[in-house]
């Protein structure tokens, strides 16, 4: 079964959006492993190893996502997950910044797909499907 790990990173307790993501992806037929709010990079990575996940989808809504996500790709490589596809979305930086710049910074950190504030999960389902095919 195609598995995807979701959760909210760092000291962030925004639970509702994460629940919506879980619900939507489950309806799409994926095995969704939800590590919940207040999750560390290790929580995501450990879950992805045990569940053999293809995609890790990181949410952050409280502005500190950039600090929380730093070094995540390196840790994935270290843990044997070099091919895992990393998604990040939400209010991932402080304040209102030019999203092109933000995307560039997160891509440099090793994230494969970066989404701006207010992106509904439904609008990216086709990308998830595409990436799942790529990775299987």
């Amino acid at each position, binding site marked *: *079964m195609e*598995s995807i790990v979701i959760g909210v990173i760092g*000291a*962030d*307790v925004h639970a509702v959006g994460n629940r919506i993501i879980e619900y939507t992806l489950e309806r799409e037929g994926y*095995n969704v*492993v939800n*590590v*919940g*709010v*207040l999750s560390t990079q*290790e929580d995501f990575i*450990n*879950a992805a*190893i*045990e*569940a*053999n*996940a293809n995609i890790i989808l990181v949410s952050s809504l*409280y502005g500190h996502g950039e600090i929380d996500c730093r070094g995540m790709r390196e840790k994935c490589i270290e843990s044997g997950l070099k091919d895992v596809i990393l998604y990040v979305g939400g209010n991932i930086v402080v304040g209102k910044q030019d999203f092109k710049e933000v995307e560039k910074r997160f891509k440099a950190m090793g994230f494969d797909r970066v989404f701006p504030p207010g992106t509904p999960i439904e609008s990216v389902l086709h990308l998830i499907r595409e990436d799942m095919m790529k990775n299987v």
Partner: protein
Amino acid sequence: MSNYLLVDIGSTYTKLTAVDLNKCDIVGSSRHFTTVDTDVRRGYEKAFMLLAEKTNITEYEKIYACSSAAGGLKMAAIGLVEELTVEAAKRVCLGAGGKVSLVYSHYLTQKDAESIRDGAIDIILLAGGTDGGNQECVIHNAAMLGKIGIQIPVVYAGNRSCQDQIQTIFKEYKIRGWICDNVMPRLNVLNIESARQVIQTIFMNNITAAKGIKKIEEEIDGGVLPTPYAVLKAAELLSRGYLHEAGLGDIIVIDIGGATTDFYSICSGMPKQANVLVHGLEEPFAKRTVEGDLGMRYSAAGVLKNLSEEQIKLYREKGIDLRQEANYRNANIDFLPKNEREEYIDSVLARLCADIATSRHVGIFSTVYTPLGVMYYQTGKDLSDVKFIIGTGGVIIYDRRAYDILKTTLRTPQKPMELRPRNPDFLLDYDYLTSAMGLLSMYHPEVALKIMKKRIKKIERAYYES
């Protein structure tokens, strides 16, 4: 006739307890040195005679036994990620009454597999991957065990999706393998029961023979259970109650022995306040941890290793050279305190064992500062509201300072983040009957519960140190 005999074959003593089912009470008990080197039956028969002299009973309707002789049940736990399937595998071993001697995560190397083979291990528990999750790792590990020609029974309790491949590997390498449900079917969900049953069946059928305990099976009904499992069952019964006979609610049982310190907590351990988030693997309602480096004799030197130089110095200021005392006890395992001072030093060691074992068992808080204010992560069980702490095992039962020993498990300002009990009552298993009642509870839970409630009593008065 309704007399039952319950036998506990320990590493040092074989203990017999006779129970009258009609009266719901103990008729008598006796003990004799365990004779595992020659024939366990000899020690058992001696104890049987002693008991017969006391009670005039020589016929029993049923005889049941448990054992921790010859090192108990030594296990190796193998998983994938340390905090997840490795932890789950460890908990299954402990819940089945085993002692986790070796632990491995991720891919086994040939050297790892060889040290399992040469490590006097009784059963290997192989886990890894959630159902439908990672397969490569467990398949690699099973094959690695096969390649070095492992003869030890292997229990597979990993990813359900590759049970067939594992079965093929077992066949190919002629491994004595068993397949059961995944210890972690979904992330952070713990599933103990299936693997535990298989482990105990193997223990009864295969391990007891190797340890020279098998011979006793001619004398008893049913197979021999691991003693810690019997204690866990007794504690669970005492906590939960049975039908209309109420239990005690949330309890802790602590058993300090010569080689190990066992800590059992029977409660959900869920958070007691609102701003707490539970972190990590699901906790079993009846949880056992065993500390192989904390004990009064075989492991006395291990207690020292847990202390800092400063702590040892503090005892020296009180006139106790802990290092010398611990090493002496380590070298003379049949040492018994002969005077007030030696008794006191034994109680100091017991307090350290209880304190450190508690630190390792209880859950801990860690603080997170969020935009919504301070929140806490809780890792492990919250034991703050536990109502009773029960002491068992020779050291506590025969120590006048039992109260002071049990008191070290309480919450302390020195360890503010540990979720230790706050205000419990202290009980003592004066008749050393938890393992016997655990055995009895499999067949007559109501009787076992009534006897425990009658016999396990509150420690009324603390013994005050001068």
